[in-house]
Structures are given as structure tokens and as C-alpha cells.
């Protein structure tokens, strides 16, 4: 029987999620990653599932697999997210629906199914992903920022609802980091955004891992419902 802790990471194929998967694998975790398409990460202790995070049946299937294969779940990192840089007057409803499905419904489903497994052990850590675009009111990101505001609210209320099961729920808000998500945003926009941070530099994957490390460590069992924005944004 494995004694190493088990984590689920959504959006683990690339970017921040991929970095976190490798980061926690190297720290001895078993990691169940997921994304819409196959991953080329092949490592001992890594398991990948292809799914749409807003597909309820598929998400239930993923957590059933975790239950059957690992028998425990210690942490969930809700990293999967999509955005769309566009003026509100040019944004179709289909884009709004798609962003809400992935960012809000997907995060909720992973929290719900993860918590069902975690409660069996009476402890667990959930880390959701929000964005500095919400507190900075970034023009052109109305729907993305609004979806992440919903994730923040979800985080704060689930912190209360899940505390009785020994589960903490927190959020990290990265600044712009060079990923596929930010590559779609014009450079001047990103530079302007970084200029509004207290610490004016691009974020690194390591900055995010530093916060998730803090939230998931055993000593953080009295820390819940909190959001940490990187770069000094508040």
C-alpha cells in the first residue's frame, strides 16, 4: 500500500499545471493530471485522464479512478482555466458560456468530488486559481475576471461548508506568466498590467508553486478561505 500523498491537478498538460505536476512528482506525490488532450508527461506516479472539466460524468469518473487506484486524496489544484481577451460589446454568448463552464462549473465539480474523497480521511487541501485581472479590473477581460470572481466566492463559501470535514479551500491569484493564456494577449496590455503590480515583473511558475506549497502543507490546517495574489496585487 502506497503511503505517498495523492493530488489531482486540472489542466496539467502544459503551462502552470504541467510545472506543478512535475514539481509535486519530484516531491514524492502521486499525481492524477487531466486535460482535454493527451499529455506527453510520462513519469512514475503520474496518471493522466483526458476530459472536459465541466463534464460532470467525466469528472465523477476521474475521482472514481482516484478512489480505486489510490484509495485516498490529499489535495486538488484547480488550475484548468480559459480566457478570452475581448471587448464586452464584441463577446458572443457562446464565449461567455464556455468560459463559465470551464472556470466555474469545472472548479465546482472538482471541489465537490474531491471533497467527497477527502472527507473519508477527515482532511484535505483544495487550491483554486483566480486572477489579478479581477481586483485590477482589467478592460477586455470582463468575462474571464467575472468567472474568477465567482471562483473566489466559491472558495470563500466552500471554506465554511467543508471546514467540518477538515478540508481547507484557498486560492492563488497569479500575475501574468508566460503561458498560452497570456500569449494571446497583446504585449502592451500585459506590460501595462504588470505596471500596476506592487512588484513589477512577470510571474514565474515557481511563484505559484510557492503559494500552493504553503496552502497544502499539513501545518496550514488553520488557513482557509484565503486568496493570495502574487506581485503585491490586492
Amino acid at each position, binding site marked *: 500500500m502506497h503511503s505517498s500523498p495523492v493530488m489531482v491537478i486540472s489542466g496539467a498538460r502544459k503551462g502552470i499545471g504541467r510545472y506543478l505536476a512535475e514539481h509535486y512528482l519530484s516531491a514524492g506525490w502521486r499525481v492524477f493530471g487531466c486535460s482535454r488532450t493527451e499529455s506527453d508527461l510520462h513519469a512514475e506516479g503520474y496518471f493522466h485522464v483526458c476530459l472536459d472539466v465541466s463534464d460532470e460524468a467525466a469528472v*465523477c469518473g476521474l475521482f472514481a479512478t482516484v478512489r480505486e487506484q489510490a484509495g485516498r486524496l490529499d489535495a486538488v489544484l484547480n488550475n484548468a482555466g480559459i480566457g478570452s481577451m475581448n471587448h464586452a460589446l464584441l463577446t458572443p454568448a457562446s464565449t461567455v458560456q464556455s468560459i463559465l463552464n470551464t472556470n466555474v462549473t469545472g472548479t465546482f465539480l472538482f471541489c465537490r468530488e474531491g471533497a467527497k474523497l477527502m*472527507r473519508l480521511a477527515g482532511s484535505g487541501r483544495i487550491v483554486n486559481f483566480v486572477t489579478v485581472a479581477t481586483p485590477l479590473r482589467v478592460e477586455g477581460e470582463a468575462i474571464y475576471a467575472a468567472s474568477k470572481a465567482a471562483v473566489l466566492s466559491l472558495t470563500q463559501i466552500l471554506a465554511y461548508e467543508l471546514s467540518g*470535514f477538515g478540508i481547507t479551500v484557498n486560492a492563488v491569484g497569479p500575475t501574468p506568466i508566460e503561458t498560452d493564456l497570456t500569449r494571446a494577449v497583446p504585449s502592451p496590455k500585459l506590460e501595462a498590467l504588470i505596471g500596476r503590480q506592487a512588484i513589477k515583473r512577470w510571474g514565474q511558475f515557481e511563484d505559484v508553486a510557492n503559494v500552493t506549497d504553503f496552502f497544502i502543507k499539513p501545518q496550514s490546517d488553520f488557513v482557509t478561505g484565503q486568496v493570495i495574489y502574487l506581485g503585491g496585487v490586492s
Partner: protein
Amino acid sequence: MPSMQTIDRAAVAHLILETLQDFDLPEESSVPAGFSEHTILFGRDGLLDSIGLVSFILDVEENLRARFGISITLADERAMSQNRSPFRSVSSLVDYAVQVAAERRGR
């Protein structure tokens, strides 16, 4: 593991009563000498508070999955909107679980 084809009301009632026996009830609950289908779960004179009910329903769902191999959600919108809560007593919960399981099988 019995298949869903063989599930009957008595089997579900047995499972729910077993789940209740194993459930960690709050100390302040006035626990009766024994549990039966007449046992009140939630509401006035019920054994469970709201967080206890959540845990108990999840345990029942988990045991139904483990023993009968079926994944059902008992606390859905329909359950929550009924005038007479299916979570009021063991008996009403058994009836509701059997109904949901049968609907699931019929899909």
C-alpha cells in the same frame, strides 16, 4: 456484489440501517436503543444536524456504490424541493433511494 437487477427495498433498508449504525452521531444526539425504519433522521426530533445529514447521505451514496455498484445522487434538486423531505426518516430515505436507483436502472 449483488447487481442492480437484484436490489430490492429490503436490501436498501438494510444498507441504510447499517450505515446509520456505523455513523458517528454527535454526542448531544438522543440516540435510541436501536434503529428502525421509524427512526427520525432530520428535522424536529431528528438524529442529525444539517452537516451530519450531508455526511450521512454521502455515506449512503458511497455504500450504495460499493455494495450495489451504482452511483446515484440522493441530494438532488428534486429531493430538496419536495414538501415532505425524503430525508425525514429512515423509511422515507429508503423509499427515495429505491426510487432513484430504479430510475437510474431504467435509463
